[in-house]
């Protein structure tokens, strides 16, 4: 029998895209950044510092102060003083105007922030420009308006601020996460000590400068840079009333245990391993775009990434073919290039972790597929990766990889795919692709996850609550329901 020759689409081998780099010339980067405490930029006690590295070039960007327990204590004291004397007693209408002003300042300086975000974190400029920065600005704008309307948000109760919020954010959406944390906290009348991730502190310190420019009273927002020890100092500080954390489930559990004996409240936004489910009646080309966006958006450094693909068995061959074709068109490379689809892996450590999982996947017997794309010589890079022939028990199916790695499984019936999708300790998000409305609502009701995208994926908005079920954490960020994390009800 003659073997069927497979036709392969040829994308772009006849010509190259011209480079379309975003200019970085207007974005000023200082040699060294200090801590922002009590309205002043100050050195860390003992002058300890660390460097942030550009993950796409391995180049040094700037030094950042490493906050010690003493620095954190100063920041918490400043936040307490500002809470007692200024922020909690300020008329809510005035509070609102400060937050509106911060939103406006971010909008005015949007391009600068986008450029810096891509330099520091490695994400494509298209994403930092069109997603991270606008959503950060919009988040402040949205929550600003809540400040003087809280009585309508909690019928039958009076909402009061909690006090000093200690906030620890991850490296995947540095500015956006800062906005998600700071904006609702301020709107509800709390003051803040925020720590950005140690690999991406740049836009947080730029935000500190912007907040300083806005005239926000000293101590209302304090930003301290550092690694895990700085974060632990915030979590364990006795005068912090509320902890808000976004990061891994492992660290989230440590925090939950650390505050067990205290009166501190917490919101935890942790890991995920989302199912993205494609039925045979889905518009397949759009679904494939959705799968690609679901897992390769921000190099897969997304807690809600659609990292487990479930394809209905009868369309498996065509979907995988389309996926492979689409993979070979992805442009992996310079984050500052406007054509780039997949940027740099955020750090050497994260790249090592992803590579460990690639190895595990192969060793477990899964079939690996990577497109034949060129990677830059310097920096941290990972090819977009598919794993075929995997089953529920594979570690690459069970554990969060946090990189551009998609596992592909098949299913026959709706009940089967619901069971498989829910068979995970996580429950942050899910995706469903089908043309049939009743099927969508059946699925979206039964998937145990906090955000369900139907015929779309990885969409975010300030009015839309985000957060998980089960081990993906508790509490919501965004929207009306996101206010609850920052108030005491009486």
């Amino acid at each position: 029998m003659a073997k069927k020759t497979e036709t392969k689409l040829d994308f772009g081998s006849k010509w190259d895209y011209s480079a379309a780099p975003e200019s970085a010339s207007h974005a000023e980067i200082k040699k060294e950044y200090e801590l922002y405490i009590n309205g002043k930029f100050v050195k860390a006690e003992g002058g300890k510092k660390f460097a942030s590295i550009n993950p796409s070039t391995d180049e040094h960007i700037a030094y950042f102060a490493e906050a010690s327990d003493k620095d954190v204590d100063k920041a918490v004291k400043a936040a307490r003083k500002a809470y007692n004397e200024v922020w909690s007693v300020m008329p809510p209408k005035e509070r609102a105007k400060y937050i509106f002003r911060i939103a406006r300042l971010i909008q005015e300086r949007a391009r600068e922030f986008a450029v810096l975000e891509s330099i520091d974190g490695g994400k494509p400029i298209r994403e930092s420009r069109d997603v991270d920065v606008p959503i950060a600005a919009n988040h402040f704008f949205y929550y600003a308006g809540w400040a003087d309307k809280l009585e309508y948000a909690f019928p039958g109760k009076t909402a009061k601020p909690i006090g000093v919020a200690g906030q620890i954010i991850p490296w995947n959406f540095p500015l956006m996460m800062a906005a998600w944390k700071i904006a609702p906290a301020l709107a509800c009348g709390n003051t803040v000590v925020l720590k950005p991730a140690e690999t991406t502190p740049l836009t947080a310190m730029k935000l500190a400068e912007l907040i300083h420019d806005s005239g926000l009273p000293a101590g209302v927002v304090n930003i301290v840079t550092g690694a895990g020890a700085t974060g632990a100092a915030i979590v364990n500080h006795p005068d912090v009333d509320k902890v808000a954390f976004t990061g891994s489930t492992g660290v989230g559990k440590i925090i939950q245990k650390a505050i067990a004996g205290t009166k501190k409240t917490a919101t935890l936004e942790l890991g995920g391993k989302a199912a993205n489910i494609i039925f045979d009646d889905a518009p397949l080309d759009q679904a494939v775009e959705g799968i690609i966006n679901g897992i390769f958006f921000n190099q897969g450094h997304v807690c809600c990434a659609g990292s487990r693909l479930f394809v209905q068995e009868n369309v498996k061959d065509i979907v995988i073919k389309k996926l492979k074709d689409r993979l070979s068109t992805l442009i992996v490379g310079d984050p500052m290039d406007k054509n780039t689809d997949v940027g740099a892996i955020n750090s050497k450590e994260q790249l090592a972790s992803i590579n460990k999982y690639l190895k595990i996947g192969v060793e477990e017997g899964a079939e690996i597929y990577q497109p034949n794309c060129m990677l830059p010589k310097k920096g941290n890079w990972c090819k977009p990766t598919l794993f075929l022939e995997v089953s529920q028990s594979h570690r690459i199916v069970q554990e969060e990889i946090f990189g551009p790695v998609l596992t592909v499984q098949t299913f026959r019936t709706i009940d089967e795919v619901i069971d498989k999708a829910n068979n995970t300790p996580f429950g942050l998000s899910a995706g469903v692709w089908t043309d049939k409305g009743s099927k969508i609502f059946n699925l979206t009701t039964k998937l145990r996850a906090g955000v369900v995208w139907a015929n779309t994926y990885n969409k975010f908005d300030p009015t839309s609550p985000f957060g998980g079920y089960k081990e993906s954490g508790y509490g919501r960020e965004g929207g009306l329901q996101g206010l609850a994390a920052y108030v005491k009800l009486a």
Partner: protein
Amino acid sequence: MSRLEVQKTYKIYIAGAFPRTESGRFYPVKLKNGTVTNICLSSRKDARNAVVAARNAFEGWSSRAAFNRSQILYRIAEMLEGRKAQFIEELIAVGSSKASAQKEVEASIDRCVYFAGWCDKYTQLFGSVNPVASSHFNFSVQEPTGVVTIIAPESPSLLGLVSAIMPVIAGGNTCVVLASENSPHVAVTFAEVLNSSDVPGGVINILTGKEDELVEHFSSHMDVNATIYCREKHLTKIKENASLNVKRVSDWSGKDWFKDGDDPYLLLEMQEVKTTWHPIENIAGTKSGY
């Protein structure tokens, strides 16, 4: 010759049945009239069986129509009202005055009616349609957290138990409850009410026994999603254990259940918020952008 009274064997309530504890152990509780009652001293295995029952019941209970759940909660109130005299008698037997026993039973009945009314309303009040800036339809609605373990207050033994259970099941969760240690009789009798109220087996499971023994298993079980604690001693331990699988923990100690129990925000503590997105084609000239 006077007639000999038939005494009740107090058993536990798991999956809609009344087994004795698998451990065969008991602890005696002496009534005011001198009668000694042998109460099941529930074990780790009983707790685990009860969690399995609650997990099995979760899908059915949470996917029932809210209106149907509402009617079942109201049915509990009807059954409780019909057996009011028995509950008053049982409370008096463990030391209540007649007036306070009556007050407690009536408040318990009213608490069931209160939460019966919430079943099909709280998502309307606390859910939302969110005006996102992109061309998508987006809404958020509450869903039950899952299997909830409850360590009910030591007293009031009936009202505290009912007040802790009702917001949990009104919101579609299933639960495993530890009854008051020194006054467990009304909890067992309340299980009989549940058994005749169309509450599916496994939705509410009631154990009797020692807090010191069971608190560990109630808070560390990996298939339990949340724990409600209504006493004082073990809060820190519960919160620490909860971190094993990111359980939600509610501290309901120190509540005056006569005053603080009518509160939909208690119900919300055992709810998750689910947000659903779907594209809208071509609204106001914008593209849907899958």
